[in-house]
């Protein structure tokens, strides 16, 4: 996927002015936050699970090569095949060639974020095939020709009216022209259209929430059932997964599953949690003849053991997006690449290069909510700070900032001078505001006052007011 992370500041400004987007974000409101809260309140074992989940992931990462090999062996023993891809190009080449082998014209797809990472739909289209997204949210944005704006709710930025318009445009050719006013009507029409696609497709591609080393299984979590239809009806099932998804055992996967749905949507478990192991067996009445797993690195081996190592624990629940004040204000597209929100601000620079996304690590107030709700205890603000640190190391600090910091440093070690100057500035600003209590423009702070007023000081500094009050008390006591 082409990135626009470089223009993050401009993207964010546009997002704030986009009334449709702001309406969609308003409708989403605090739904995810409230549901997660309720689910965690009902689970006294949450902290224990969180602790264990972290341990499982760290153990697996410490022996990642062995677990990947064990996984591979088990897939082979169950009649499947494993393919390894270091780069997006290698991954799309493998998948395109597997789909060609299947003589696939139409390829149904379950939701896969790695698929977005590697630009899978574009590659399939370029090879003359038709990828059909089957998750309702992904289907909507495929019709709109847009990337997802949230990792678990890809069409969260679309209002019902926008969806209705899209369906009208694209479904008319199928003879579906009745007006869609309600949510059930929209969902029913999508069900009707996609039902045919599920049945016609020659190959199905799904992601994986987890890979299980001991059994060679891939785990898929959905609510709609689209992933299971994609995995079970076509002749070929291709699973695409990044290498850090592997865990040792079924029991380990269970611990993480207990956290995943609760953190994402507040559900204890999603409607469908499925474990796929190999292709159909000889006596099975349905299921794919071929089962392939494509393991994708795309920068993960670089993160192993370096300062961003903890990011490999991420299970893509989306809780950090839902709780981020920046994400809630601008939505996902402004981030400019596949992954938005705090996890995206950490991952994007690692995957497309810090120089391509220098402003993403700045898109944080460091309020810490993301780290607080992360089920895998990833210290997201620390990782963002690390990016800022690296950026400063690479590019240094601007002269203006250096001068400002140097002057402040000079004053900070001279408290009397500091206080005297602060007093002067406070009085001056108070005088300039003429008692209105706010300032629309302040020299050297144009960036700050561009979109808000500066509250004007009331005429004296805190220390001056304190000293005055203390003096009065002392006088009163005497």
């Amino acid at each position, binding site marked *: 996927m082409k990135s626009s992370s470089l223009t993050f500041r401009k993207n964010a400004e546009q997002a704030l002015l986009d009334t449709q987007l702001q309406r969609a974000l308003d409708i989403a409101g605090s739904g995810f936050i409230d549901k997660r809260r309720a689910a965690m309140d009902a689970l006294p074992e949450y902290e224990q699970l969180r602790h264990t989940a972290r341990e499982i992931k760290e153990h697996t990462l410490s022996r990642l090569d062995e677990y990947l090999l064990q996984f591979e062996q088990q897939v082979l023993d169950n009649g499947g095949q494993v393919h390894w891809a270091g780069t997006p190009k290698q991954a799309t080449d493998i998948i395109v060639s597997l789909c060609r082998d299947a003589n696939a014209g139409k390829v149904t797809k379950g939701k896969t974020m790695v698929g977005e990472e590697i630009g899978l739909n574009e590659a399939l289209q370029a090879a003359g095939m038709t990828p059909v997204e089957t998750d309702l949210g992904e289907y909507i944005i495929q019709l709109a020709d847009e990337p997802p704006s949230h990792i678990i709710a890809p069409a969260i930025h679309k209002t019902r009216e926008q969806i209705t318009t899209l369906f009208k445009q694209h479904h008319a050719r199928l003879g579906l022209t009745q007006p869609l006013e309600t949510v059930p009507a929209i969902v029913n029409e999508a069900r009707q259209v996609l039902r045919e696609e599920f049945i016609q497709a020659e190959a199905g591609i799904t992601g994986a929430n987890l890979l299980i080393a001991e059994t060679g299984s891939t785990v898929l979590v959905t609510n709609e059932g689209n992933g299971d239809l994609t995995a079970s009806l076509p002749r070929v099932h291709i699973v695409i997964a990044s290498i850090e998804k592997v865990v040792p055992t079924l*029991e380990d996967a269970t611990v993480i599953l207990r956290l995943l749905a609760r953190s994402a949507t507040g559900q204890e478990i999603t409607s469908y949690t499925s474990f796929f192991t190999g292709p159909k067996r000889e006596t099975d009445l349905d299921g794919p003849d071929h089962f392939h797993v494509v393991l994708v690195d795309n920068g993960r081996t670089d993160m192993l053991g370096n300062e961003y190592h903890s990011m490999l624990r991420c299970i893509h629940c989306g809780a950090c997006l839902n709780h981020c004040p920046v994400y809630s204000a601008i939505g996902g597209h402004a981030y400019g690449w596949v992954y938005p929100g705090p996890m995206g601000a950490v991952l994007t620079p690692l995957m497309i290069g810090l120089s391509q996304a220098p402003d993403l690590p700045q898109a944080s107030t460091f309020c810490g909510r993301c780290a607080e709700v992360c089920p895998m205890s990833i210290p997201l603000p620390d990782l963002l700070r690390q990016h800022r640190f690296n950026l400063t190391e690479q590019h240094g600090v601007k002269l203006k900032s250096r001068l400002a910091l140097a002057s402040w440093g000079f004053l900070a070690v001279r408290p009397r001078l500091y206080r005297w100057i602060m007093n002067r500035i406070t009085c001056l600003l108070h005088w300039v505001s003429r008692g209105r209590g706010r300032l629309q423009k302040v020299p050297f702070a144009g960036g700050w006052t561009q979109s808000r007023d500066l509250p004007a000081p009331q005429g004296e500094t805190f220390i001056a007011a304190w000293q005055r009050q203390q003096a009065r008390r002392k006088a009163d006591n005497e």
Partner: protein
Amino acid sequence: MNKARETILARIRHTLRGDDKTLNDVAVKPPLRQPSCGPQPSWQEDDVSRFINKLEGVAGSISHISSTDEVVPAITAYLQQHDIPLNLVNARSSILDGIAWSDDFMVEQRKATGADTTVLTEAYAGVAETGSLVLLSGADSPTSLNFLPDNYLCILKRENLVRHIEGVWQRLRQEQTGLPRAINFITGPSRTADVEQTIQLGAHGPRRLHVILLEQI
């Protein structure tokens, strides 16, 4: 893409252990780690009540029967209540094969098509923790049955209700038959919230899910 495989593994090894051995030098001896059960949710009520509460919490419904003779009346009542025709496709199991269908029913045993409205299966297990049904793919239990119909009916024997998810793994390990192609944990009907975060049942899978709990006396 063997080259990619070697590169990825070599990079991991180099980072983790600082060694640059070739692939063949490290033999993997499974199991690397014995399965061990993590923290589990707890509850006060009995397991059947927990199962029912969780199932109803996700828009599933349930009827209780105490012998296989009651399967047909229970299904008839449910389908008539919802105005659903008495046609169904069913999976195979000793219970399902033994049902004496009345002449009102049209019953077929096969995999599902996109046109089937109602399906009857028997669950491998139920999970009290989550209100889930567990279905294993196999010659008697095609996976398409779980996802294509509008109405999903499933018989669950009381003795097959496990407390936690791990109970399913324990049973599968004891049976030593290896895993089937697909294990489906099904918890309520299919749903989506992709249009304005409004929950709507029946996205791509069943719109209704009804459990027939068989308490053998």
